């Protein structure tokens, strides 16, 4: 049976391998529920702390940076690690193969992991590029260096907006 895109995303998120049956779906839902509770309480506490910092120091930028970075770190590292750990604990990523197919399955698993790593790297590079463009847009939109090519080659300018290469 062909998998839908939502099933593929579900499997990718919870590190499921093979067809998704009742056990894997139930365990994945339980893990997702725990992560949702973790995120809820963490976000509540993080927002409270950021609000206190903002109200007491009037340093809104610091409060925002603390809030954004802590949420990012918690979501990516702690919640993500928990999903991997719980999936490993409940054997969600286990794959059963015949003894004769063990070598082929092993090679396929390595190939898949390399492909996944490459995709992740490309994705993170794209995100980095977008973030750089956003930052660049914020720093140069008031200067005469503002031109479309700047977005493609943001490294042509330094962070102060000084042109390192001729704009034209």
């Amino acid at each position, binding site marked *: 049976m062909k998998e839908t895109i939502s099933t593929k995303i579900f499997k990718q998120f919870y590190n499921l391998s*093979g*067809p998704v*049956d*009742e*056990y*894997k779906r*139930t365990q994945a839902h339980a893990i997702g529920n725990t992560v949702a509770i973790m995120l809820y309480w963490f976000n509540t506490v993080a927002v409270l702390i950021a609000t206190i910092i903002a109200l007491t120091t009037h340093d809104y930028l610091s409060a925002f940076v603390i809030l954004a970075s802590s949420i990012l770190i918690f979501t990516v590292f702690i919640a993500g690690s928990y999903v991997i750990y719980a999936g490993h604990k409940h*054997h969600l990523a*286990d794959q*059963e193969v015949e003894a004769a197919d063990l070598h082929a399955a092993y090679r396929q698993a390595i190939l898949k992991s390399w492909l996944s790593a490459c995709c992740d790297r490309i994705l993170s590079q794209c995100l980095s590029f977008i973030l750089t463009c956003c930052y660049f847009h914020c720093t140069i939109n008031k200067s005469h260096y503002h031109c479309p090519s700047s977005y493609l080659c943001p490294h042509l300018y330094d962070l102060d907006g000084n042109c390192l290469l001729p704009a034209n």
Partner: protein
Amino acid sequence: MSYIYDKKEGYAVNNIRKYRKQEKLSQLGLAQKIGVARQTINLIENDKYNPTLELCLKLARALNTDLNSLFWEEKE
């Protein structure tokens, strides 16, 4: 046969392994018959996972029995 739930009113038992062997089915064969992974059958047989009613019905049909025989034993 293992007892997965014990209460004064009666006993809930797990007879899946017994009926599977009666039907001369392997774990993999039973799993393929009802459309789940072999690990799921193994976990159910070892009382590490409580299946849903839907899966219990599938198991009962696949093993040519009923839910009472699979999961219930009258108190003596």
